[in-house]
């Protein structure tokens, strides 16, 4: 939860300050005035980076730096500073955080943007991001294992190329060692993701019923490219053997074709794959239910109320649906909604209006 936030030279905001409501906040204004930028500033406090590509400039045109200062109910003040050259710095209670990962879990955040609201049917990388971004906020071991996994795969790909081009002395033996390492870390990542899905499925089923009125079970299955059964007690060994079997073909592409970086999840609604059989509206409600369930898991694991950002994610829903989502959502976190038309959303929310580009005004 964020109780107050201050922006300086952040995108189109020269200066802005807002005291947020602990339940529901609605930020509205015409497109291009900076609604998403405001949500981005809140997002940055959770993850230390933007939800937009890194190429775009966070620092306001011609300014020397951009700064976001946020306070949470735990009496922590986070200062995030961005320089035009891409450098950034995070200071928590006047102490510089040595690594970005030290920020995770301090301001737990769930982001639901246009891609996330379509997570059921969208690209597999979005579904992997959903797992990684949620789990990383409460499980530091997962952060280490995922980091070690990514590095090991990069080493493996280099070793494949080195061996194929005859540039690494003793390379074949080295690949076998790296395969063990990839399987070791990859199996941890896979098992943790699988445990998370086990946790989130019943929660998501309940929330989906509450916001859609449909009483059908949501089941989420982990589809691993590295093992047929993610519950296998011999997971690391099975994974290693499959990796070894892939070696010959991977030596042609210099790519590691299996593992958590290629895995996916399948979401079933009442035993049918939602991707194929759920309606357009159901797909959106399932996505929202998944994100709210993720917020509940964060709260249980960290003991802090997460901030849930709906970035234009409710705009496509019919007013009645959007209303019922917002009635239920505050049970799962502090809600911040960016929308072009606030009229029919909810009564007891704090309203912020973008009066002009880069200028935010509290309405009531």
């Amino acid at each position: 939860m964020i109780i107050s936030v201050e922006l300086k030279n952040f995108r189109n905001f020269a200066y802005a300050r807002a005291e947020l409501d602990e339940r529901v906040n609605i930020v509205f204004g015409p497109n291009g005035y900076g609604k998403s930028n405001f949500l981005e500033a809140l997002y940055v406090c959770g993850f230390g980076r933007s939800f937009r590509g890194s190429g775009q400039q966070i620092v306001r045109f011609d300014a020397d730096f951009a700064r976001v200062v946020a306070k949470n109910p735990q009496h922590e003040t986070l200062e995030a500073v961005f320089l035009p050259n891409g450098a950034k710095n995070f200071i928590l209670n006047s102490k510089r955080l040595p690594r970005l990962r030290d920020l995770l879990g301090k301001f737990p955040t769930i982001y639901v943007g246009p891609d996330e609201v379509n997570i059921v049917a969208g690209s597999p990388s979005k579904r992997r991001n959903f797992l990684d971004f949620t789990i990383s906020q409460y499980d530091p071991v997962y952060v280490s294992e995922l980091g070690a996994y990514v590095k090991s795969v990069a080493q493996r790909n280099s070793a494949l190329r080195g061996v194929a081009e005859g540039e690494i002395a003793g390379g074949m033996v080295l690949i076998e060692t790296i395969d063990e390492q990839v399987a070791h870390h990859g199996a941890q990542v896979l098992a943790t993701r699988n445990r998370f899905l086990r946790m989130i499925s019943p929660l998501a089923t309940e929330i989906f019923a509450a916001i859609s009125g449909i009483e059908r079970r949501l089941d989420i299955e982990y589809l691993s490219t590295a093992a047929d059964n993610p519950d296998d007690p011999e997971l690391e060994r099975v994974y290693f053997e499959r990796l070894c079997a892939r070696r010959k073909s991977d030596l042609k592409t210099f790519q590691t074709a299996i593992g958590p970086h290629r895995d996916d999840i399948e979401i079933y609604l009442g035993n049918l794959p939602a991707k194929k059989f759920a309606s357009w509206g159901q797909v959106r409600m399932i996505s929202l239910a998944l994100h709210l369930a993720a917020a509940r898991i964060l709260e249980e694991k960290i003991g802090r109320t997460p901030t849930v950002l709906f970035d234009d994610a409710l705009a496509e829903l019919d007013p009645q649906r959007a209303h019922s989502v917002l009635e239920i959502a505050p049970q799962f976190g502090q809600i911040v909604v960016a929308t072009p038309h606030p009229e029919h959303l909810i009564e007891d929310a704090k309203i912020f209006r973008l009066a002009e580009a880069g200028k935010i005004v509290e309405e009531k």
Partner: protein
Amino acid sequence: MGEFPKIHNTDEIPGEAPQVIENAINVFKQLPGIGDRTARRIIYWLLGQPGEKLEEFISALEELKNSVKICSVCFNVSITDPCHICANPERDHSVICVVAEPQDIAAIESTRIYDGVYHVLGGLLDAMRGIGPEDLHIAELVQRAAQPEVKEIILALDPSNEGETTARHIAKLLKDVDVKVTILAQGISAGTALEFADPRTLSAALTNRTELK
């Protein structure tokens, strides 16, 4: 219009330092952690020193070149071969501590709790930089480990991805050798080079080393 005397040597670009100075700067830039600006500062500082001072530097380097050898047993740098550690009968030759670089030996020696001998690999396995097993002194280590008097191999490598690969690789090669293989306990924070770990953390990690095999 007056006549201007020619002040530039024709080989040199006006505004740049003479070529000899640029050459020296380029040599210093090769030192670890030294960039262009620092190299430049060092060279100009040296130029400001009296001649004896420069002689001191030159003879120190020359002495390094002429007297420092690589130990044929452990690949440590030393003025004798075998090095003073390998040649010391007081040290426990049944325990070999494996490190990546000679400077890691200094870090472990500073803990004063280790009295075994060492083995310097000369780096870590790193496919991204093209460093494979045959580029390091791994085969020599396996040979040493197979000697009957050797009881334990301690892997004291950086807690990095490359350190992990190297440790796994050595453990695998020693699978059928009758020797205990241990690894430094975690406690050294990930990303800290062994060379820079403080002695207290390092001695705790050394005492609590865990068995790898």
